[in-house]
């Protein structure tokens, strides 16, 4: 750790940033200090709204539209960014400070080839000529272990997979050999197995070029692998800062401790009711296709009352499609869906009100799952009105009861609109809407993945409590194995439309595993700062290159 004066790269003091909303300027970052030396990697961690990205961008002297830097100083290598002209600041970007965005797929311009975007900055800054820059790009691609480094740059972004794009973006950030790179949640949008490759690549290249970096993430385990020091943020304030080791082992602040503690929620595993108990839902040999593309083949599993079946898999594995088959949105091409042993019509259009009522769904994105133009009472009340025919006072008391169930005070939320609520509250409304139909079976489609960890835990606990009280059966779709660990009774692992492995949770988490389950399990980052190194050593580096070409 270099803390000599001459190594000082970035010094931020009392940084204040304001955002424009509701027609006035509100402070969203309240005086944050940050010091970064050459070659040092700092992790910025916090929940959404903590101001991590805003601070990261401010380190480039940049504020998003609708934001402005209202106070403090940002000194980069002796240059005060808050007072220099915009053109001078711009001259730093891309050349001395580079940025790696969260979603590489969205941050590469779809209209240009990857390599042209890569070489834009070096050519613009006259650091390299076009051909030199291209050769340099290919070299970087190779260092980042991208397949076909000579050729991959000449593709368009949409022709390259997400993990590869993210590495190409890291390469692009390196194009001018900057002193500092801001990584803004570079792996959040990736599947776990891809994430591990990208993490490894980023860590290697940062080390190789001895580049300083600010690594922004909400995932502790990830930041533990990457950062030398960690700074924890909450609502635009600094909570604490320490080197990684210390921070992981002995956090000082309560907030930090609570973050660390999230992963501890676990409930006892239940086992299937014995005898001739009929599963609430059983999926039998279901095949499904979108047009001519087959997406599910021979999927079977059962869900019993009072139990949670977690369906796990990476994106594209067919988890959500299975849910669509069960609800009847996508009639299976073959196979059956049974509820309480009764064969269901394949399409929801042919199902009776009663059949529809029994199976309800909770969605991942509460924003799109709730009609923003309808009051909470109507959102929750509608199923009760629709299925049970409740009216007037009866309806109101039912809505109040449901709001109580999801731990929201009825009088306060009854007349509000979804956009006025926080993410966790919205998700609770989604749950209440499902409960309003008095179902026996609920599909939870990634219900916690869009939420901050503390909030997510609250939702999981709520779901668990409701399951106990109402004897509900859950089908829990998730890609997050930590969630599976905490809530599932049984686990179904899916890959490319097929069930790879299924069984009670304990069995699944104890070896021997199916090779894919093994890959999945071993890719989940752990809090140990040496985890990444260990895993990579275990797998052997070549393994990663192969996986990346998938």
């Amino acid at each position, binding site marked *: 750790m270099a803390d000599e004066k001459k190594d000082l790269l970035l010094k931020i003091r009392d940084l204040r940033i304001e955002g424009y909303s509701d027609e006035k300027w509100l402070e969203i970052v309240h005086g944050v200090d940050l010091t970064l030396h050459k070659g040092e990697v700092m992790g910025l961690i916090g929940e959404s709204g903590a101001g991590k990205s805003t601070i990261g961008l401010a380190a480039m002297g940049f504020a998003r539209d609708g934001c402005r830097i209202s106070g403090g100083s940002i000194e980069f290598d002796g240059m005060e960014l808050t007072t220099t002209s915009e053109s001078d600041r711009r001259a730093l*970007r891309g050349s001395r400070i*580079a940025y790696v*965005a969260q*979603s590489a797929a969205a*941050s590469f311009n*779809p209209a240009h080839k990857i390599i042209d975007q890569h070489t*834009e900055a070096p050519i613009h800054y006259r650091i390299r000529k076009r051909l030199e820059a291209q050769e340099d790009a290919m070299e970087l691609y190779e260092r980042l272990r991208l397949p076909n480094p000579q050729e991959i740059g000449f593709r*368009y972004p949409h022709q390259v997979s997400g993990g590869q794009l993210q590495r190409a973006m890291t390469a692009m950030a390196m194009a001018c050999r900057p002193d500092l790179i801001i990584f803004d949640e570079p792996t959040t949008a990736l599947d776990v197995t891809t994430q591990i490759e990208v993490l490894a690549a980023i860590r290697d290249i940062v080390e190789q070029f001895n580049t300083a970096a600010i690594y922004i993430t909400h995932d502790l385990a990830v930041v533990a692998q990457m950062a030398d020091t960690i700074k924890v943020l909450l609502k635009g304030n600094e909570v604490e800062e320490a080197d990684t080791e210390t921070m992981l082992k002995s956090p000082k602040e309560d907030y930090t401790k609570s973050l660390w503690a999230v992963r501890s929620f676990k409930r006892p595993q239940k086992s299937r009711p014995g005898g001739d108990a009929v599963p609430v839902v059983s999926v039998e040999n279901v095949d499904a296709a979108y047009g001519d593309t087959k997406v599910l083949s021979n999927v079977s599993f059962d869900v019993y009352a009072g139990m949670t079946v977690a369906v796990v898999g990476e994106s594209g594995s067919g988890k959500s499609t299975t849910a669509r088959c069960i609800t009847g949105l996508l009639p299976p091409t073959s196979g059956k869906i049974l509820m309480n042993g009764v064969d269901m019509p394949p399409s929801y259009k042919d199902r009776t009100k009663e059949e529809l009522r029994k199976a309800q769904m909770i969605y991942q994105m509460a924003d799109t799952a709730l009609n923003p133009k309808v009051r909470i009472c109507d959102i929750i009340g509608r199923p009760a009105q629709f299925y049970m025919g409740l009216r007037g006072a009866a309806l109101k008391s039912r809505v109040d009861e449901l709001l109580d169930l999801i731990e929201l005070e009825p009088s306060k939320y009854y007349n509000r609109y979804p956009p006025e609520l926080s993410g966790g509250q919205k998700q609770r409304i989604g749950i209440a809407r499902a409960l309003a139909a008095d179902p026996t079976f609920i599909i939870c489609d990634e219900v916690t993945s869009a939420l901050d960890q503390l909030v997510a835990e609250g939702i999981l606990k709520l779901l668990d409590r409701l399951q106990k009280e109402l004897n509900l059966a859950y089908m829990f779709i998730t890609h997050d194995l930590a969630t599976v660990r905490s809530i599932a009774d049984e686990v179904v692992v899916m890959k490319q439309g097929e069930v790879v492995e299924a069984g009670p949770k304990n069995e699944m988490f104890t070896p021997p595993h199916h090779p894919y389950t093994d890959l999945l399990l071993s890719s989940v980052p752990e809090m140990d700062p040496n985890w990444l190194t260990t895993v990579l050593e275990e797998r052997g580096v070549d393994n990663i290159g192969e996986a990346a070409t998938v």
Partner: protein
Amino acid sequence: MGDVLGIVLKRLGLGLITLLVISILIFFAVELLPGDIAEAVLGQGATAENLKAMREQMGLNEPAIVRYLEWLWGAVRGDFGVSLISQRSVADTIGPRFAATLFLACYAAVIAVPVAITLGIIVALLRDSVFDRVANVLTLTSISSPEFFLGYVLVLYLAVKNPLFPALANVNFQDVGTFELYYKTFLPALTMVLVVVAHMMRMTRASIINLLASPYIEMARLKGTPAWKVIVKHALPNAWAPIINVVALNLAYLITGVVLVEVVFVYPGIGQLLVDSVTKRDFPVVQACCLIFAATFILLNLAADVGAILTNPRLRHPK
């Protein structure tokens, strides 16, 4: 690229069906018009006797459906019949008029499209500045003015008060030099430019600004790309689809919707021909004009869609 061809073929097929439906609609619309061609031709000189002879000669005594099918059979073979009044072939009647309309449309488009897109880019670059506001008000005003009125005002200022350009654009394509041709048709072209520029420019501005919130635009700015380059190199290539769409719509308008400009500047275009033929109930000419217009519209729309595909690398370079 095979996809594009497939789409084009499918759309052309649908276009043909649309044309067929339009031909039926137009035929019966003309049938339903009060009075018939014989009455229209003879005017006050019509008597029962010569009306009968006239109808006989024009073959109007056959049932409507038979006449339509006869026309259709001819049309399928590429023969759109003869004008009932002049007895000249429809192709000869329409040909030069349509050429004139196309010429004027191209003339206007060649000025309007680059001007509109350039202005749109500049306005997007200078968004929320005074220049943007002024451009906004001016374009709105030009959209809001009836085009014949725009024409009259141009004539007043550029032909009557300051005799810079001729007020009449009654060009005769055979014996007019190239320069004179452009000179004489300048005012109608300018009127049409004013009518369409505003729309295209606003769309260009809107579609560019719409993209400015995209992560890749932020990325470009974070790479230190200058503002104009962000717009031209990073936003514009992704904004083509809506721009092409509105350009196509406006090109279609330049060809099909300029009857009033033709009237004001006495330009021998197809619009005037169509209006005349409607008042005279000269069905074959009406039909042919409407089908040309419809085909223009369909083709331009198709071109816009193909253009949108071609400017979209996702569709141009499938995985």
